[in-house]
């Protein structure tokens, strides 16, 4: 992959990555904070996502909504929160780069002076119907709790700024320096450590207002970039990604007992999870699907993937990389990917090493990893069934309580 970039670390610890691409007169600004729901503690959940909302509500020197000036300048903007990180981005016409940097830096350095009780109450109220975080925690949270959370995690030393597109690298870096370097860094954030394991199979059941029942099978798996992560990514593809996959062929194509099936290895910083999801066709139970899924996992683990599967998996991985890198900004574009590698591996140019992981997968390594991780008696099996149809769930499932 040819993705030239420069990286500078400012005096306050903020990494600034710059990538030049003059194909379109636009510039991407992408800012990662290395904080996500993994940094929250029980009783204090939902804060990272709460900030994702508060960060659009104004800062000390521009105490109004952030959408208007940026959209008015022709920007698209958004943010997202997951377990590991929060990202904020703007894609602006190249002539509005400074505006985006002004605003991103103002909410990094000067958010709290503008965070009033009223604003906090308003965004907390919005939360009643956003599902991340426990509503009770957010109701119990006080303004000083969330201020402390901000001070701990939202500062230059815990962030990475990536600029990509129609920019002059020196000028872009000078702008980033001017706007961000005066921001006082907080204390370094210690990495979170946690062990995730499951000693048995957990079967849970949820009744909902749906037409067809759905089964979710989920296993703990290795963390992002850890040995086995790429093997399981490919294993998930061979099992249930698209029409060539083994489970699609059996469940949807041959036996026609499922309406759809999919699988993914969800790589996270502390641990991963592999999830297989299948929706039963009318008249079929989730136990029927579970039997076939179990058989196909066993067959792939025991017999290993075919040479054709391995080859397809490798070229698909390579092509997907190239497809993702066609845009400078947004979720998954070049600026986001550079930041992801920088935050998680310390090397924004990790592309080739990342791809190398996929090239290194062999039939025996994949079998081996599957046999170690995808155990029937170490998983969560969630059945979601139409209200009143618990007979369609896996036998022995315990009703789940959802707040």
């Amino acid at each position, binding site marked *: 992959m040819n993705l030239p970039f420069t990286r500078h670390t400012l005096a306050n610890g903020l990494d600034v990555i710059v990538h030049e691409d003059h194909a379109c007169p636009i510039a991407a600004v992408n800012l990662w904070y290395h904080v996500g729901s993994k940094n929250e503690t029980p009783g204090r959940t939902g804060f990272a996502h709460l900030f994702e909302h508060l960060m659009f509500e104004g800062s000390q020197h521009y105490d109004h909504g952030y959408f208007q000036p940026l959209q*008015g300048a022709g*920007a698209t903007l958004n943010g997202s929160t997951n377990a590991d990180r929060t990202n904020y981005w703007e894609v602006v016409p190249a002539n509005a780069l400074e505006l985006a940097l*002004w605003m991103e830096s103002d909410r990094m350095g000067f958010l709290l002076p503008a965070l009033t009780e009223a604003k906090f109450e308003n965004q907390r109220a919005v939360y009643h119907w956003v599902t991340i975080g426990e509503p009770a925690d957010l109701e119990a949270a006080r303004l000083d709790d969330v201020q402390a959370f901000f001070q701990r995690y939202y500062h230059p030393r815990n962030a990475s700024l990536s600029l990509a597109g129609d920019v002059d690298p020196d000028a872009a870096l000078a702008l980033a320096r001017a706007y961000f370097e005066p921001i006082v860094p907080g204390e370094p954030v210690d990495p979170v450590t946690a062990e995730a394991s499951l000693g048995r199979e957990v079967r849970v059941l949820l009744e909902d207002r*749906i037409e067809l029942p759905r089964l979710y099978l989920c296993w703990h798996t290795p963390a992002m970039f850890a040995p086995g992560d790429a093997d399981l990514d490919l294993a998930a593809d061979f099992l249930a990604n698209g029409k060539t996959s083994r489970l699609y062929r059996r469940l949807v*194509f041959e036996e026609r007992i499922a309406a759809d099936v999919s699988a993914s290895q969800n790589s996270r910083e502390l641990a991963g999870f592999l999830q297989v999801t299948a929706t039963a066709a009318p008249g079929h139970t989730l136990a029927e699907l579970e039997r076939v899924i179990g058989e196909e996992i066993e067959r792939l683990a025991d017999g290993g993937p075919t040479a054709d599967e391995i080859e*397809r998996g490798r070229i698909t991985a390579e092509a*997907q990389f190239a497809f993702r890198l066609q845009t400078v900004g947004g979720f998954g574009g070049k600026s986001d990917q550079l930041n992801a590698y920088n935050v998680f591996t310390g090397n924004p140019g990790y592309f080739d090493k990342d791809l190398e992981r996929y090239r290194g997968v062999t039939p025996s390594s994949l079998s081996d990893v599957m046999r170690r991780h995808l155990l029937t008696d170490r998983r969560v099996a969630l059945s979601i069934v139409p209200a009143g149809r618990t007979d369609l769930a896996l036998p022995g499932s315990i009703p789940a309580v959802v707040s």
Partner: protein
Amino acid sequence: MTLQAGVPVDRSRLPEPGPARLFRFPPIERSVLDSGLSVWSVTRPRSPVVTFLLLVRCGSAADPPGLEGLAATTADMLDEGSGALSAIGIHEALARIGAQFDTDIGSDAIAASVTSLGRVADRSLGLLADIVARPALADADFARVRELRQHRLTQLRGNPGAVADRLFLRTLYGAHPYGHAPGGGEASLAAMTGDDVRRFHARQIRPGASTLIAVGDCAHDRIVALARAAFAGWDGAAPDPAGPDALPPQPARLTIVPRAGAPQSELRIGEVGPPRDTPDYHALVAANMVLGGQFVSRVNLNLRERHGFTYGARTAFDFRRLPGPFSLQVSVQTDATIAAIREALGEIADVRGPRPIGPAELALGVAALTRGYARNFEAAEQIARAAMQLALFRLPDDYFEQFVPRIEQVTPEIATAAMARHVDPARLSTLVVGDADRFHDALPSLDLGPAVVLPPDSF
């Protein structure tokens, strides 16, 4: 740039953007093969990715009455085998070159596309031709595909937004070709046969109605040669698309689709708007930004920010070959249903009443449309889909070049007048999917006449 070394940045005001940098849509080269297939290419030096998109100017509006969903089912059947390749075999061949295949269907067109690494362009184009020009369309595959589509309809019955979309089209258009969603319904799917699909393909999916668009690091001559070889043997003109059908008389002002226990109400408010070739196109695009086309629009600021009824509300003109729907779409908390309808209707009516579009809000909408325009043309597939708009609606070559200046020429008076011409508050239809028992008694206060009650599974 206003910065000077050692001088702190000015945080007393937001920096003004500098002069806009010029955007040019890349040139399109065009040829027509003997079969009638148009071949367009956009060359992007050094791009590692190539997209081929085949546009067929025929969509769900061509579904015969009683066989609604036929165009979509045919589109869905295209990749179910071709020649020696089985339904699975086609996808194995795509996967072996890392290609991504996609089909889309709308009321006026079917688009099939393949995106791959440029080094396998000849193979990806060959597969696209196998899929579109020479599909197997076998009965056994038809039975399975139809069954999956039926399951999908079943699932959508549980999705109030999908129910609202489907019934709203029916309310506005009745039996008109735009009166059904591309997926059709249970009864029309049950009536369909493999012969219907084969007949549809033979009649409608023809090179004379089609344009192949190639975007990548590939010279036009080479694309033409590849296309001539890949599509050899595919021939035929297609029937002209249907002319404008009569629209139904004024639909009911208020339609209720009961959904007991629903925590939110899905609202659709709108009417049949103008076609894509309306001379008011740019004025309406700009006006809609003010009304409900962006976060800071009147409708969203009212329903979301001021009243907190919803997570987001929007309006849109769905521009099609024939007059397409204008609609406001929002999902609101059940107890806010009546108030939200009143506010939404008020916002629409106010544009040509007491609150015509003002210069500041229009400037904001125009800026949002024009200043970031270039970002719509980054990836190969984005450029192919942009070029597809030119082919589908027969827009002039300089359409993208002219978009920004034409939007900038829209004044508040022009925008307001265009809205007044095409959106008549007295003709608006409102459809609600929700827990009707909880707001039924207050419906008369809306003054929309008697409510028509539709069961969720009608049509």
